[in-house]
């Protein structure tokens, strides 16, 4: 399945974050959500990708955006990874059924059995506003997301103005 594109409704999900706790996309209504699918905890490229995002987190917050990392690793693995790297955002476990959520977003690598390295920006109404699939082994950095967030906020500001005028 192809990566879901701009304009598509973001498939709903509830996934475990830390053992015993679930996070649902619907909790973030009214907020922008950045989904970062990645192949695996601990591998160096992912580490760098999430490490860069972790540094940019305050900027994401100013854009009213919440970052969620998703891989097929289980919750205990996520917990150890998160504590080791001191990430200030949540990692979700698409572990059982394996890759179920990633498949719905077209962000599952069937051959390798892991999530692709894919990014989505979902707006407060649950609509995908931007998506990007990185080539394997290439760390996408944060520039694409920052561009998409700026564009989204500019569009929302214009819309607000129009609504006011109407």
């Amino acid at each position, binding site marked *: 399945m192809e990566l879901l594109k701009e304009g598509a409704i973001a498939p709903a999900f509830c996934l475990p974050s830390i053992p015993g706790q679930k996070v649902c996309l619907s909790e973030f209504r009214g907020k922008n959500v950045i989904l970062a699918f990645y192949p695996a905890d601990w591998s160096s*490229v992912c*580490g*760098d*990708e*999430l*490490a*860069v995002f*972790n*540094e*940019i987190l*305050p*900027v994401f917050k100013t854009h009213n955006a919440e970052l969620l990392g998703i891989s097929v690793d289980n919750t205990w693995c996520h917990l150890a990874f998160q504590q080791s*790297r*001191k*990430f200030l955002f949540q990692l979700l476990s698409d572990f059982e059924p394996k890759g179920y959520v990633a498949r719905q977003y077209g962000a599952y690598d069937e051959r390798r059995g892991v999530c692709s390295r894919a990014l989505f920006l979902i707006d407060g109404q649950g609509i995908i506003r931007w998506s*990007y699939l*990185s*080539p*394997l*082994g*290439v*760390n*996408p*950095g*944060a*520039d*694409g997301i*920052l*561009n998409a967030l700026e564009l989204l906020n500019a569009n929302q500001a214009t819309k607000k103005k129009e609504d006011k005028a109407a």
Partner: protein
Amino acid sequence: MTNETKLRVPISRADHSQGSPDAPLILLEYGDYECSYCGKAYRVIRHLQQTLKNDLRFVFRNFPLASLHPNAMVAAQAAESAGLQGQFWEMHDILYRNQDSLDLDSLTNYATILDLDLTKFLEGMERSEVEEKIRQDIYGGARSGVNGTPNFFVNGSRFDDDWSYESLLSFLNDLRSQPSRKAPKKKAA
């Protein structure tokens, strides 16, 4: 990403820079004091500076990845604070030569070695303008597509190729003789 390979934040007076402002070659690094690859890059850059002399200007911007390197942020603050007393590069050198010892005690020790005003140094590390400068470096880097450290820009274009001394020297030498040449793009790994 999205093939953005240009430096989005132009070099300004706020930047730390070595070498002639009129140098035909400008090498800019986004670096982290605790990252071991940056330590290797430090030695490469020193070597390039000795070879290329006045033809090379070097600019350093902070890109501490605190989640990977617990002391990277305090080290960056130490360098910036030393900079407030006119000794950024002196501190920069000490930090890259002592990457295994970047805790606060060690940083204070380095400030003493550099004969900095210790009270001002420690106060400077906490100053909001220092923190803001580092944040701006990180944000500007992210906007220019920096996705790890070290990341290099040569004359404003991203340099993603092998940054060994030989490779960088040969690229810089070629650029000096044909200024229109573009930085090579990295092949997907």
